[in-house]
């Protein structure tokens, strides 16, 4: 692809109607008590008002520490959870309020790659039937021979020997299984793939292979990815834009380079400062911003800005006012009123 074409694609990326628009997504899990008469004693606010968009062919990174709700956002988009409130508009259709029976067609457009390659494949099915099952059930390819060819092709696209079709998952390594997971996701020709910590369980050399595969596939088929991860260097490499989550809320959302080079939110700064620099001298010399305390419970989150008890820059109003995610500079969204504008 020439540089000029590259430019055109970059432009159209920004202008295009988003493939996915998430608006005010909330997922509250009830905490129940009682043996016979269940009553709700509290709510785990796993996701509490999250909004973002993803354009066709774009990769949005979703980062944050364990338990901040990033996986739940992915599960809501996949409709593996029924969101408590909010909209998930995919290709102009709100899928958050849809009944499961109406979902069937749209489900194929949104696929998922899971974190753990050992539990994401049914151990009783051969690789070939794992990949071809959806094509058969949904009648995408009706002819058995053609389907077998398509399975071989998908395995080849994902860098696996087509012979693997006759094997069981337990005969393969983690990296190979993850490739099978990707081939399965591709089998229904999706437009959007949720990568839920897709490389976190793999060792570093395999991670690099899978990341390259994901990038190649995106170039080839123009997928959008929601890339959920906690490994910031992987996110920086792969994503176009990055959203940072803390305790069920997005605190900052910006273009990848902008976010990494110029983080604004105190939490993002702390998170980025935790990434080690691969040079011992610089690493020893640079100052780390270490957060005090623990992540508060999402059952009883702090008032105002959920980050204020740990925030080094918190002022009195942070305890009271819930900050909105607002445009700080063009393309850079921030949920912190304290950070000074230049």
């Amino acid at each position, binding site marked *: 692809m020439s540089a000029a074409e590259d430019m055109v694609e970059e432009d159209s990326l920004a202008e295009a109607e988003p493939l996915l628009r998430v608006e005010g997504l909330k997922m509250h899990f009830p905490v129940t008590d009682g043996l016979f008469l269940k009553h709700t004693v509290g709510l785990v606010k796993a996701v509490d008002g999250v909004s973002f968009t993803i354009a066709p062919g774009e990769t949005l990174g979703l980062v944050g520490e364990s338990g901040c709700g990033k996986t739940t956002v992915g599960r809501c988009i996949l409709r593996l959870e029924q969101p408590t409130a909010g909209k998930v508009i995919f290709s102009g259709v709100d899928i958050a309020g849809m009944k499961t029976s109406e979902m*069937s067609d749209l489900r194929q457009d949104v696929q998922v790659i899971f*974190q753990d390659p050992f539990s994401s494949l049914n151990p*009783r*099915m051969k690789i070939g039937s794992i990949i071809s*099952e959806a094509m058969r059930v*949904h009648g995408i390819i009706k002819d058995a021979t053609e389907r077998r060819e398509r399975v071989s092709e998908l395995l080849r696209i994902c860098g696996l020997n087509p012979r693997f079709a*006759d094997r069981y998952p*337990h005969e393969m390594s983690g990296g190979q299984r993850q490739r099978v997971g990707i081939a399965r996701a591709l089998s229904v020709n999706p437009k959007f793939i949720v990568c839920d910590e897709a490389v976190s369980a793999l060792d570093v050399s395999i991670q690099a292979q899978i990341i390259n595969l994901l990038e190649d596939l995106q170039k080839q088929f123009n997928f959008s990815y929601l890339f959920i991860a906690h490994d910031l260097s992987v996110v920086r490499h792969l994503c176009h834009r990055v959203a940072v989550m803390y305790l069920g809320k997005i605190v900052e959302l910006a273009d990848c380079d902008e976010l990494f080079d110029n983080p604004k939110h105190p939490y993002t700064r702390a998170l980025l400062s935790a990434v080690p620099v691969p040079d011992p001298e610089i690493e020893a010399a640079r100052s780390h911003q270490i957060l005090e305390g623990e992540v508060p419970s999402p059952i009883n989150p702090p008032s105002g800005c959920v980050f204020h008890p740990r925030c080094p820059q918190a002022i009195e109003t942070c305890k009271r006012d819930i900050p909105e995610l607002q445009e700080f500079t063009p393309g850079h969204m921030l949920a912190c009123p304290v950070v000074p504008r230049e």
Partner: protein
Amino acid sequence: MAVNETYIGIQDEPLQDRGWGAVAIDLIRRQPLGAAGGLIVILMIFAAVFAEQIDMYDPEVNDFGAMLQAPSLDHIFGTDEFGRDIYSRIVHGARTAMLVGFTAAILGSTIGLLIGVTSAYFGGWVDNIVQRVVDVLIAFPSIILALAIVIILGRGVGPVIVAITIPLIPNCARVVRSSALAIREIPYVDAARAMGFGHVRIVLRHISPNIMAPYLIMLTTFLGQAILAEASLSYLGLGVQEPTPAWGLMLKSGAEEYAESAPWAVIFPGIAISLAVFGFNLFGDAMRDVLDPKLRDR
């Protein structure tokens, strides 16, 4: 295929599927007790299938000239009070036992599997209702429940099978449900849901096959239990009816009057029952170990 294509982890020797012969040799070497159980099971099934070929007399024809004879060359296990050959009756009794045992065990465990998986998969109020019904059924001693069903449905082989199957179902459903609850949370089930598969497909193709280990354990214990239950019902006079040969029936007539004067009339059916239950239990344990693909190559 292009020459310069490279694949990850290429392995050119074809993966060999092991034949049944190799599996059998493996079984004998690693599970000698299981192999012994298997031999008993094969013997029982053989007797059941080829009863007409290997019997020595018609099991239902009385011979009043040869009543209560001790074991001899003519009647290797002796004769009963009607002069019927006990060996031939045991061979034909195996047919009754295997028919009732296998049908009841397979039906009981399979229906239990489906109920258990469905209950766990849907959860919520469905699970609650199903599990309370299961509680009620488990609270009955199974032989009492079976007796009640036989009394409602009448006698004969069919009602006996139903009567033995129904008390087995809740046991299996309970065990399977607990396994299915764990399987339901595994990502490949989420992947199947994300593919838009229906509930029936997910239950039958994605959850049930992964509960084969507890299912097989239940199935094989049920085989022994069902054979024992059939013998008990027949012994109580509520199961298979005379003159059809059944081990429980033989035990009954032998034990009541001739236990001292003609002990062979009760010993041989007793041995047949214990041997069958023993063999099926041994075989079941071994089969579980061998068939689990994760344990296979260790």
